[in-house]
């Protein structure tokens, strides 16, 4: 990790919504294979930051670099092709299609067979092998033929991850993968995250502190759109300011 060039980087990234600065002068770097989390109180601008990274939102100023290339002006679709993957805070799937079809659609787009019109999808064995491998990785092989909308909510979150992984991202942005999942079950998400390929850099945003502290190698604390502090989980846990504004507050909420 140390010494390698960052796979994802921002320079003085800033975004205003009207007069409100929701992201301010953020210098951020994520290295290949790194496991990073961003935490911060509600309204700290975490999702906005992810949207700026993924290209869903354009910054007011500053730059986003993906694998050293300036992608600030690049569309969301263009960044996906360059290796940016993400999941959504609000589940976004193909509700009436089976789990396997959900993943197949992503694999087909990524491997460039989605224009194939005259060959049955079922005949695309290579792609289906990959689909089944992905479903196995996130633990959904037993429900491959179930419609996405009939899955329990937690497993829909896993399907989100499988769809994102199907695009072979170099960077994976996980926007609250455990949202809506009881804290008692967030270890399932954690165990899936542990099996992600080691060369993918993963950026996690979540409110579940247990999940964040067990997952991340480094944690970035975002407050009012700016980075307040960055460090290892131990450093962050020991940081007085963080405890005061964030952890203390959430401990109370949890108690």
């Amino acid at each position: 990790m140390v010494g390698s060039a960052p796979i994802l980087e921002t320079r003085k990234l800033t975004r205003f919504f009207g007069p409100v600065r929701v992201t301010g002068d953020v210098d951020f770097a994520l290295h290949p294979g790194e496991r990073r989390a961003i935490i911060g109180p509600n309204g700290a601008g975490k999702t906005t930051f992810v949207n700026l990274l993924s290209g869903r939102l354009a910054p007011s100023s500053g730059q986003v670099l993906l694998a050293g290339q300036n992608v600030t002006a690049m569309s969301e679709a263009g960044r996906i092709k360059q290796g940016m993957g993400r999941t959504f805070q609000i589940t976004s799937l193909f509700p009436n299609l089976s789990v396997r079809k959900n993943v197949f659609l992503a694999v087909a787009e990524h491997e460039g067979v989605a224009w194939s019109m005259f060959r049955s999808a079922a005949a695309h064995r290579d792609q289906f092998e990959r689909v089944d491998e992905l479903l196995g990785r996130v633990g959904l092989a037993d429900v491959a033929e179930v419609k996405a909308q009939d899955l329990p909510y937690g497993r829909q979150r896993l399907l989100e991850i499988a769809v994102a992984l199907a695009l072979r991202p170099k960077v994976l942005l996980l926007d609250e993968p455990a949202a809506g999942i009881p804290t008692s079950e967030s270890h399932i998400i954690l165990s899936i995250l542990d099996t992600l390929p080691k060369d993918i850099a993963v950026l996690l945003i979540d409110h579940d502190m247990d999940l964040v502290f067990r997952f991340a190698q480094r944690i970035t604390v975002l407050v009012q759109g700016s980075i307040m502090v960055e460090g290892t989980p131990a450093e962050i846990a020991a940081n007085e300011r963080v405890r005061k504004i964030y952890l203390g507050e959430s401990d109370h909420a949890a108690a």
Partner: protein
Amino acid sequence: MTDRSTAAILPMPQAGISGTRKALSMSLWVAALAIPTLAPGYTPLANQIVVMILFALSLDLLVGFTGIVTLGHAALFGTGAYTAGIMALRWTNDPLITALSGMAAAALVGLLTGSCMLRTKGLAFLVLSLAAAFMLHELANMATSVTGGDDGLQGVSFSPLLGVFEFDFRGHTAFYYSLACLFAAFLLVRRVVNSPFGWSLRGIRENDARMRAIGCPIYTRRLAAYVMSSALAGLAGALQAQTTQFVALNSLSLELSGDVLIMLILGGSGRLYGAFVGVPLFMFAQDLLAKEDPANWYLGQGLILMVMTLFVPGGVLGLVERLRRSLGRGGR
């Protein structure tokens, strides 16, 4: 839930159809072949039904599989019909050449209008499709020297099919020709909707934002579906011209666009067989009601439609599916 989890054990998803449905579908095709022999008096009506099934099938590709609802599909049907008719009157009356030209012309119109209209979706697209069809209708109405205006194109005759089979007054050649075209189109559409391309269309129907986020070029994908559907609608129009030897101005009308949409929804969209169920149902009902009360039959038709839409969402095929599912559950 139970039947779904057993399905998960199967090694490969069969996107096609199950054995009994395959047998049923095959026997229906064979039965259709016997119509001119068994019910010669009904051959012209059967031909009309076959042509409309092809038209509704082309619409299913848009409405059912891609989620594009249009009220201007007759524009493409009419383009095919007028192309075949005008060519027959002026240049060549070979059925295959004029049919292919009708398809090509409709595909071109679909490409031109589609590339503008598909920048929008939903209600905006619906209105644009309506407007485009109105314009084409008015154009055909005004260009009387080419299209015959309000009178339509009369006395359009075609040379024998493949140089052998005359379009006889009993309508046998016409019927078998239309049926062969429908069968070929059906095989094509079935293949396409079961391909990765066809699956991606369903992905667009389900959640186009998500499709974009997995890197799908939504606009060109939808345009490709639109052009393909246009070509098939154009073929249906050309068949209409060839088998009735007449092109009416209302082959471009809103009424026809609406009727074909109703027929498809009646049968059940997005199921490939909806057109095969909805069109005969609609046309037989129309036939019966018109005999009963020639002046006010639209009233009866309207009532049937309201009942169907309110109580049988998903059309006849949707109803069959739900019945089968609840029977299956009860049996367990």
